[in-house]
């Protein structure tokens, strides 16, 4: 039932509305609203009950194993939420003067910048981008500003591997670049020969993640960096996969000039059913002047905003204030709780879990996309044989997993592996959970062989059965009209 269906005309919740006669007659009629909007008229309890019940229809990290590849669904420590929600933080107006009313929050942000520099090996960090994709925008815009600042205006192309996340090419376009796809070789690495052929004076740069979205480490990264740098281009690091290498190898050391981080992945800030995220950018020397503002500076023990004054060549501002500060605080708290050693263990155990689960699934007869490679923090399995043999495809396996109490892995991405599952267990899951998942996969495979309809009709135990996505597009219904 929709909240509107609980609504009755004339019902109010006076405890939440301010009291008092509030004349608005000084606002001339021509500016005034004539009909009230369709908002629900429900009691407080009805709202609480409705949204509490709705919440229970979600799978989430707090309730289910959620091995969604590329998304790093790890435990979001509750302490981060509680502490970032202290009244002093929540109540602060963004324009409150920092000398008297902001040293607390700025201290946290400054230290976060420093810590992110440490873990990425970059020279400077700006925390302002509000998600990974906005971080990408900032990064690519800086690459562009860099070339323009040198009068190197011919560079109109950005190289992107064919396995890249969709935000990479989309960002390139938003920054006014043409996208050139680079193929992947059979082992999952970038096809170096192809790369050599396309790199040239028109190349503004390349966007990579490493480990790549194929779940393997790009071994010839040094060579790639050489090729691009020799061609006069810059290297962009998509930090969505940083969880795999924290404390092991740093993007700065691999030769990247700019990087974004997904704090809502690597640094355990919540994904909130779609956001808010946070996508800080880090840069090497070349891109330093172009950082998006504001950045937090420190002078004589006190903290303040660095703006266009200190960064006259900045690509500018990306949000009305400084992005998702509440999320930045959560990441800050998380890193403080982990410390140097804890950060390093993330990559170790994320990788251990991925390799273990990969091996278990391989032993259970599933085919890996890159069986000869080590998994990074994630790995890809292809169900193409199963699909051929049983008629149940990757989507059917995914939906059936929901019945078994597991969120499905990422399906059909990267597109170059047919019928694929991109599986990322993360370091916060225990062995028993991985074993349970592997067993569920085998059980489903058995079902696929004996009764594929069971999979095709799945899920069977959720609030709704398989939903008709095609109808959702054809008969577009995006607003309730009673």
């Amino acid at each position, binding site marked *: 039932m929709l909240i509107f269906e609980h609504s009755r005309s004339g019902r109010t919740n006076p405890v939440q509305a301010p009291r008092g006669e509030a004349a608005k007659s000084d606002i001339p009629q021509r500016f005034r609203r004539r009909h009230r909007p369709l908002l629900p008229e429900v009691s407080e309890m009805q709202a609480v009950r409705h949204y509490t019940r709705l919440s229970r229809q979600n799978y989430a990290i707090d309730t289910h194993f959620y091995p969604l590849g590329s998304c790093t669904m790890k435990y979001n420590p509750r302490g981060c939420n509680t502490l970032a929600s202290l009244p002093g933080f929540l109540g602060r107006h963004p324009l409150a003067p920092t000398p008297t009313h902001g040293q607390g929050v700025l201290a946290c942000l400054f230290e976060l910048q420093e810590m992110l520099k440490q873990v990425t090996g970059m020279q400077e960090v700006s925390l302002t981008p509000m998600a990974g994709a906005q971080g990408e925008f900032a990064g690519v815009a800086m690459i562009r500003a860099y070339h323009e600042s040198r009068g190197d205006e011919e560079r109109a192309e950005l190289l992107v591997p064919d396995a890249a996340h969709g935000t990479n090419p989309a960002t390139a376009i938003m920054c*006014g670049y043409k996208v050139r796809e680079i193929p992947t070789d059979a082992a999952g690495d970038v096809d170096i020969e192809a790369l050599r052929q396309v790199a040239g004076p028109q190349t503004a740069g390349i966007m990579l993640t490493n480990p790549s979205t194929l779940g393997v480490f790009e071994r010839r990264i040094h060579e790639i960096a050489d090729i691009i740098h020799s061609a006069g281009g810059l290297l962009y690091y998509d930090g969505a996969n940083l969880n795999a290498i924290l404390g092991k190898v740093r993007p700065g050391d691999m030769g990247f000039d700019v990087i974004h981080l997904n704090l809502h992945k690597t640094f355990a800030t919540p994904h*909130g059913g779609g956001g808010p995220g946070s996508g800080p950018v880090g840069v090497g020397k070349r891109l330093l002047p172009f950082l998006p503002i504001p950045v937090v500076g420190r002078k004589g023990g006190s903290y303040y905003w660095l703006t266009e004054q200190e960064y006259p060549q900045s690509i500018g501002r990306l949000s009305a204030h400084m992005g998702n500060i509440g999320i930045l605080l959560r990441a800050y708290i998380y890193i403080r709780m982990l410390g140097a050693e804890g950060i390093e263990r993330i990559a170790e155990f994320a990788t251990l879990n991925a390799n273990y689960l990969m091996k278990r699934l391989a032993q259970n007869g599933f085919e890996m996309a890159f069986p000869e490679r080590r998994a990074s923090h994630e790995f890809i399995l292809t169900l193409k044989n199963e699909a051929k043999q049983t008629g149940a495809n990757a989507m059917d396996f995914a939906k059936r997993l929901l019945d078994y109490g597991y969120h499905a892995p990422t399906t059909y991405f990267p597109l170059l592996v047919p019928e694929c599952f991109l599986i990322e267990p993360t370091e916060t899951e225990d062995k028993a959970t991985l074993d349970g998942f592997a067993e569920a996969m085998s059980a489903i495979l058995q079902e696929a062989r004996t009764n594929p309809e069971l999979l095709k009709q799945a899920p069977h135990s959720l609030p709704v059965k*398989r939903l008709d996505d095609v109808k959702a597009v054809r008969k577009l219904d995006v607003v309730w009209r009673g």
Partner: protein
Amino acid sequence: MPFIPHTADEVREMLALIGAQNIDELFSEIPLELRLRESGKLPPALTEMEVGRLMQERALQDSQPLCFIGAGAYEHHIPAAVWEIAARGEFYSAYTPYQAEASQGTLQLLYEFQTMMASLTGMDVSNASLYDGASALAEAVLMAVRVNHKSKSRRVLMPMTVHPVYRQVVRTIVHNQGIELVELPYCTECGNTVPDSLHRFADEDFAALIIPQPNFFGILEEVDLLTDWAYANGILAIGLVNPTALALLSPPDEWGGQGVDIACGEGQPFGAPLSSGGPYFGFLCCRESHVRQMPGRIIGRTTDTDGKAGYTLTLQAREQHIRRSRATSNICTNQGLMTTAATIYMALLGPAGLEQVAACCHAATRKLVENLGAIEGVEMQFDRPFFHEVVLVLDVPVQPLLDRLAQQQLLAGYHLGADYPELGNALLVCCTETKSDDDLQQFITLLSEAMADLRRSRC
């Protein structure tokens, strides 16, 4: 190990199955010369108790002054239920609802959100959020340029009465695509964009006109005339609106004869704590005919195999994960949890409650204005209808005054000098329903004392 569940035995068993001697071996594909040798200069781990104490001290440092700053971020009462529910693990720790059947909670809620926002703006459809108001405006500009088939222009008219930082953000985001923003001056007497002043652009080609309501000064723009002018000239109209104000003011869909094409704005007033500027959320609504050019997630209602209603991400072919370089935007993660809070906020307030919020905000600001007579050297800059925010001009310099009042735990307003030097000693002041009569009195008292002192110390 913080947040890592593995016991030593388990690690052994797992490595044995993998066939590796130790964990380090799993990183063997990383070229040795790249491997980090020391573990960096991060501070040592703190326990939750220790970091708790640190954060408590830091939060106290920022204290909780009496705040009359608005300027795009508004202190409203947030019902306790909003975050007690939004912070439930099932909302808080879920990903974007890619597996619809396992995400009906988030999806239905977002469908309800879209319905509420569409109704509030009067538009046909709404997306499920963008990052914030400023970036939503930038996306609206990009969308308008894509959508306007009557014009091939990449020029967009943007009044100077739009929030100054929004203007910067829009520029940052759109200029790489060759879009030019043409600034419209405002009347320094009235504080609005004078419709007649548009006539000089009548012969030029533009893709869109942005219309803020209220504008950055709190002043109500002549939205009907502006929208009609845009329509008459084949220009798309983009309404930039405050959602609280919409409970009182006419919805952008009803501006002029045709209404706007796109309405967008900052969602913060609906349940988002001020939180130093974020996370907030942007909203964007439009006519149904433009929906395929809309950026961001959209939730649709459909049916399951039993014919039962259910909800799912729809029109994904607009999005980067399907359309890649031809997507309507690169946005992926949005501000889901904030829209969750906003939806619960709207449900708890209802149409009457929300109207009362808007009316009380406005009445408090008006009351403040009426009492300013008590202070020497303060005047209203503009004498036109406004909503809940006004520009005062003072006979003393603003910055020293604000600094002094901040020491007394009063944040008296936003200093307009940097953005609008032509206005002189101008202060943008906002009241919301959180300001009691005592608070207003406090404002008047402290301000007049401080001004008197400042004047004295100057002579």
